[in-house]
C-alpha cells in the first residue's frame, strides 16, 4: 500500500518542522509524547499483535528509567549510553516474564500484570539502598547528563530532548514496522488468532509469545530511559499503575494496537488532562470532577471506538487487527 510510506514521510516532515514552530515548553511536552509513543509501540507488539494483555508496561518503563538513573547517578555512565542498556535490562526481564505468562491467558494475564504494576512502586521504595527510596534520584545538572540540563550545540535543552526522543522514536517505528511485516509479525498474529492453527502450521507458539514479551519490554525500557532523561528525575511514584493503564488506553485508542495509531495514543495520554479541563463543570483544581471526566472519556471512547473501527474497516475493507 503506497499510503503508508507517504504517511510516514509526512509524519517525519511534520516532526522536523514542529520545534521551530512551537514554543519551547510545547517542544518538551512533545518529547514526553515521544517517550509514550515508543512504549505504546511496544505494547502494540505485545497486546495488538500477539494478543497478550499487559497492564504492566509502566513497570517495564520503570525498569528502563531506573536503569538509566542508577547508571547515570552512581556509575558515571553518560545518559545516551544508558539507553541501549536500559533496553537490554528491560528486554531481559520481559523475556523472563514471558515464560510464566505462557501459562496465563487473557484476563488472568491482565490480572497478574495489574498486580505487578500496583506492587512495583512499593518494591522500589523498599530497596532504597539501591533505588534511592521514595526520595528518588535527581539527574539534573549531573555531568553524565548531556547538555547539563541547559542545552546542546545551538539547541535549547527542550529541543535537544525532542530531537533525541523522536530520532530514536522514528528508528524504533521503522524497526517495529519491519518486524511486524516479516515472519516475526506473521507468527505473532498466527498465534494470536488461533494457537491450534498456528501450531499445525509449524509456528513455535512458546517461542514467539516469549519473544513478543521481550521485544515489547525492550521498547518500554527505552521509553522509560528517555522519560528519565527528559524529566531528569525518577522516583517510585513516577511509574504508577495509572501509567500502565493509560499506556494500554493509548494503545487501544491507536486503532486497537496498530502502530500507525500509536502517535494518537501518545498524544492522548499527554494532553487528555488538558482536554478534560474544557468541559464546563470541570474545575481542574478540584480532584473529583477531573478524575470523573477522565474516566468518563475512557468509557465513552471504549464504547465508541469499536463502532468507528467497524465503519473504518468497512470502508477500507480490512479487519482492524490486520497487518501493520
Amino acid at each position, binding site marked *: 500500500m503506497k499510503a503508508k510510506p507517504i504517511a510516514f514521510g509526512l509524519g517525519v516532515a511534520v516532526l522536523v518542522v514542529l520545534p521551530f514552530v512551537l514554543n519551547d515548553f510545547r517542544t518538551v511536552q512533545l518529547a514526553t509524547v515521544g517517550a509514550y509513543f515508543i512504549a505504546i509501540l511496544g505494547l502494540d507488539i505485545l*497486546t495488538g499483535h500477539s494478543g497478550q*494483555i499487559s*497492564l504492566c508496561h509502566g513497570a517495564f518503563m520503570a525498569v528502563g528509567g531506573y536503569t538509566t538513573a542508577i547508571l547515570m547517578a552512581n556509575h558515571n555512565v553518560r545518559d545516551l549510553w544508558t539507553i541501549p542498556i536500559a533496553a537490554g535490562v528491560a528486554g531481559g526481564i520481559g523475556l523472563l516474564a514471558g515464560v*510464566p505468562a505462557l*501459562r*496465563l491467558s*487473557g*484476563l*488472568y494475564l*491482565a*490480572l*497478574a500484570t*495489574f*498486580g*505487578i504494576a*500496583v*506492587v512495583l512502586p*512499593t*518494591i522500589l*521504595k*523498599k530497596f532504597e539502598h539501591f533505588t534511592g527510596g521514595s526520595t528518588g534520584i535527581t539527574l539534573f545538572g549531573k555531568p553524565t547528563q548531556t547538555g547539563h540540563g541547559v542545552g546542546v550545540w545551538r539547541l535549547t535543552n527542550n529541543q535537544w530532548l525532542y530531537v533525541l526522543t523522536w530520532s530514536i522514536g522514528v528508528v524504533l517505528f521503522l524497526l517495529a514496522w519491519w518486524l511486524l511485516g516479516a515472519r516475526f509479525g506473521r507468527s505473532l498474529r498466527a498465534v494470536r488468532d488461533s*494457537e*491450534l492453527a498456528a501450531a499445525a502450521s509449524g509456528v513455535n507458539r512458546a517461542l514467539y509469545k516469549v519473544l513478543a514479551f521481550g521485544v515489547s519490554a525492550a521498547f518500554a525500557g527505552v521509553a522509560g530511559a528517555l522519560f528519565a532523561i527528559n524529566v531528569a528525575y525518577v522516583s517510585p511514584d513516577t511509574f504508577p499503575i495509572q501509567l500502565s*493503564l493509560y499506556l*494500554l*488506553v493509548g494503545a*487501544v485508542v491507536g486503532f*486497537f*494496537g496498530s502502530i500507525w495509531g500509536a502517535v494518537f495514543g501518545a498524544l492522548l495520554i499527554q494532553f487528555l488532562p488538558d482536554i478534560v479541563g474544557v468541559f464546563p463543570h470541570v474545575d481542574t483544581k*478540584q*480532584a*473529583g*470532577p*477531573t*478524575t*470523573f*471526566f*477522565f*474516566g*468518563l*472519556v*475512557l*468509557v465513552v*471512547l*471504549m*464504547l465508541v*471506538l*469499536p463502532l468507528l473501527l467497524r465503519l473504518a474497516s468497512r470502508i477500507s475493507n480490512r479487519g482492524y*487487527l490486520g497487518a501493520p
Partner: protein
Amino acid sequence: MANFVQQVVSGLASGGIYGLLALAIVLINRSTGVINFAQGEMATLSAFLCWTLMDHGWAFWPAFAATLFLSFGGGLLLEAVVIRPIQNGPLVGIVILTIGLLIAINGLTTWIWGGAAKQFHGPFSTAPIRVGGVAFSKQDLGVIVVAFVAVGLVAALFARTRLGLALRAVAVNPLESRLVGIRASTMLAVGWGLAAALGAVAGVMAAPSLFLEPNMMQTVLLYAFAAAVLGGMESPLGAVVGGLLLGVVLNLAGTYVHWIGGELRLAVALALILGVLLVRPSGLFGRTALRRA
C-alpha cells in the same frame, strides 16, 4: 503467643472484608466472564449512599436495604448501558472499560462527598471484647458471619434456584441458553446487579473499620483479587475462605518476617496471585477447566 493469636484474629477480621469483595468479583466472573476492575469503587459508592441515607436520619437496616436495592439497580444499569455494547468485542476493550469505570466512579465519589475520611456507624458494635489478652469486636465477628451468610446465599442461588441455573447456563454458553428460552442479556444484567449488591455489602461492612473515604477500597481491590484467585475464581466459598486465609497470612508475614514488615504486604498478595495462577490456577476450591481448543 498472645500477639500471635491477636494477629490471627485481626487477620480474620480484615480477611472477611477481602473475602466479601472477592465474592462480588467471583460472581461477576462466573456469570459474565468478566473481571470487573471497578468492583472496589462500586462498593465504595454504595457505602457512601448508605452513609448519606443514615446522615439524613434513616436507621441502619432500612438504609442498608435501600442501598442494596439501589446498588442492584445500578449494577443492572451499568451492564445494560456500558458493558453490553462491547460484551462480544475484544477482551482488551472490556478490561479498559472497567478501568475507565474505576476511574470515573472514584472521581464521582470524590466530587460528591469530598476526600475527607468520614465515620461510618455500622450495625455491629465496635466496642472491644477482650478474651485472654486478645481483643476483637462484634464488628469483626459480624464481618466474618456476614461473609459466610453471603456465600451460603450465593451458593444456594446458583445451585437451587431457576435463576441461578439460568445464570450459570448463560455464562457457559449464551447461544445455546437462548435456544432453551433463557434471555441471555437479562441474565447478564442480573449477574452484574447481584454482584453490585454484594459489593455494597462489602463496602458497608468495611467502612466502620477502614473509615469511609473515596480511596477506601483501592488497596482492598488487589487483596480481593488475591483472595479470589487463591480460592479459585469460580468458587464463592473459595473467595471468602481465600480472603480469610489471606488476611491471616498477611498479618503473620508482616509481623514475624521483619523484612516484609509493614511495607511489603501488597507484594505478598502479588506473590500469592502469581504463585497460585502459575502453579494451581484453579485455586483451592475451583475445578480445573479443560479447554478444548
